[in-house]
């Protein structure tokens, strides 16, 4: 389970002064469910997910991930999280197998367990034909599979995806979507950010709409449709963000 409690992140910019990237955000993601975080570029999605993955430390508030506090026990949180984004690249001079093994070892797996897990994952994801190929020689699809294998090697109960399909071709994006769906089926807690509405409609059990660092609306897709009297998710977002957007533009 993930429980964000008043998560906030402020940055200092020389020109713009203090920036509130995330402002007092609270939500809960349940095991076996997918929570979709929606918002425009710069809304605060990546910063929120980075705080949950303990890559960034919250300025205020905290989050409990699989029973561990992101501020107090960041290493325990990371041991229970699989984090995947388009920014999490692979080491170009390692082979696909070495890459996955490296993260397995960092996650404390002993060698026999690691070997078994790597074999299982490589079989499941059909990666055996390129397991000894260096990551810089892999196609985009192969790279994504290797990244997935990297996040899965320690079998984490919580998965965090930050715009995992951005910039990918249809086939590779389908692999990722299928993988996220599998994670739910396995009872993992899943949170992911995107601005591709079809992915949200297809995958998410719960949706949070974030704008200017604030969580403005939350609910299941039917709940949001009913609340904002709109069927189309894009229109719902416009209605949620619209008044704020007009105010800020005025």
């Amino acid at each position, binding site marked *: 389970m993930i429980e964000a409690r008043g998560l906030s992140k402020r940055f200092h910019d020389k020109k713009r002064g203090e920036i509130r990237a995330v402002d007092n955000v609270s939500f809960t993601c349940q095991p076996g469910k997918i929570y979709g975080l929606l918002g425009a570029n710069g809304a605060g999605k990546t910063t929120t997910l980075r705080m949950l*993955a303990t*890559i*960034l*430390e919250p300025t205020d508030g905290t989050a409990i991930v699989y029973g561990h506090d992101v501020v107090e026990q960041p*290493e*325990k949180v*990371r*041991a229970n*999280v699989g*984090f995947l*984004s388009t*920014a*999490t*690249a*692979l*080491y*170009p*001079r*390692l082979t696909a197998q*070495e890459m996955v093994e*490296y*993260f397995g*070892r*960092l*996650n*404390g797996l002993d060698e026999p367990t690691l070997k078994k897990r790597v074999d299982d994952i490589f079989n499941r994801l059909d990666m055996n034909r390129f397991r000894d190929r*260096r990551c810089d020689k892999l196609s985009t699809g192969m790279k994504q599979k290797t990244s997935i294998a*990297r996040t899965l090697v320690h079998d984490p109960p919580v998965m965090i995806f930050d715009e995992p399909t951005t910039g990918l071709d249809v086939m590779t994006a389908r692999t990722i979507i299928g993988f996220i769906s599998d994670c739910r089926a396995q009872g993992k807690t899943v949170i992911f950010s995107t601005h591709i509405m079809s992915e949200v409609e297809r995958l998410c059990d719960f949706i949070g709409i974030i704008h200017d660092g604030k969580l403005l609306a939350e609910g299941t897709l039917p709940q949001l449709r009913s609340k904002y009297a709109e069927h189309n998710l894009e229109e719902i977002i416009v209605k949620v963000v619209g008044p704020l957007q007009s105010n800020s533009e005025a």
Partner: protein
Amino acid sequence: MNFHNISCVYRKELTEWLRDRRTLISTVVVPLLAFPILMVGMVSLSSVLIGKAEKETHKVMILGGEDSPQVLDKLRAVQNIEIVPATDDYKHRISEKEIRAAIDIPKGFQSALDRGEEQTVKIYFYEGELRSSSGANQVEKSLKEYRDTIVSSRLSARNVPASIIKPFDVQQENVAPPEKVSGAALGGILGYMVILLSMTGAIYPAIDLTAGEKERGTMETILSSPISRLDLVLGKFFLVLSASLTTAILSIISMGTSFYVVGRSGFMPAKDAAVLQLHIGLATVLSVFLMALPLAVLFAAVLMTIALFAKTYKEAQSYLTPMTFIVVIPAVASLLPGIDLTAKLALVPILSTSLVCKEIVAGTFHWAFIMLIFLSSSVYAAAALFIAVKMFQRESVLFRS
């Protein structure tokens, strides 16, 4: 601190490092090839230059002297000297390097000599111009020999012993064994090379493991793993340190082998070749490395810290290039004559290590200074490593945009 994780990061970085052509070239290939190429180049060039200089004749002009045939004969007998006809623009011709020197023999020189009157022969040359100085020196040497002959004949004509004008002789006798002589000559260079190369060997890995990782987008990947930032930075640091020491060790082996081979190859005159023979034992080389170790730690930590600020490989390179000068200047300063170890200088990083290495190679062990330098360098190194760890914990540095 988790040693399993540190070792895991180190082994992974080592694997990647051994597969990176760029860093391998700078760390292994360049130090191994630089000295043999440099030595062969130097020897070939010097033999060409020496051969050319030996064959070259200097054009020299004699002004006057028609009434003094004896001195003219002496000058004509000088080897590698070609006498050219006198002209009034001799100064201009020396400046234009058409002739190397001009000798002004005063009128009535010979008869004045016979009368025992003092005479002055002037040699015009162009100071700072190697060939002009060389021509002038040969002429001066010949004239002095001629003067000494005249003095000797005058003394014997008067039955006066030669010792009357030379009451005693002065001679210098070397008591230093050959290894100390070569140690003094090359000792400074050994310390300097170890220091410089341990820095240059660390530059590329330091960039690759910090700014390079940011640029490739793998920094976020590794930060999402459960490893602590301390273990991560230590694993990376040990790899940079290994690269730094590898470069230094390979360079010293390459330098020693090159000197040995060229010294015994017969390409050089025996006297010059003897200078190249490093009479340095393994214990001395190890002592130099031991003294340079804290400095290598300091370099690895400082280079990583600076490179971590950069967002890209190129940006990191532009930050680290000036570091070479910061290291070279104190290292070169230690080679200057007259700079000796003092308690104050022992606290100056790089300079102190370079100075103490020079002393160690020359066979002098000032234990108080050695301890002080080792301790002070270790303190600087520990401080730099501490800062590097702190920098890896700063989001503003890791995610600088």
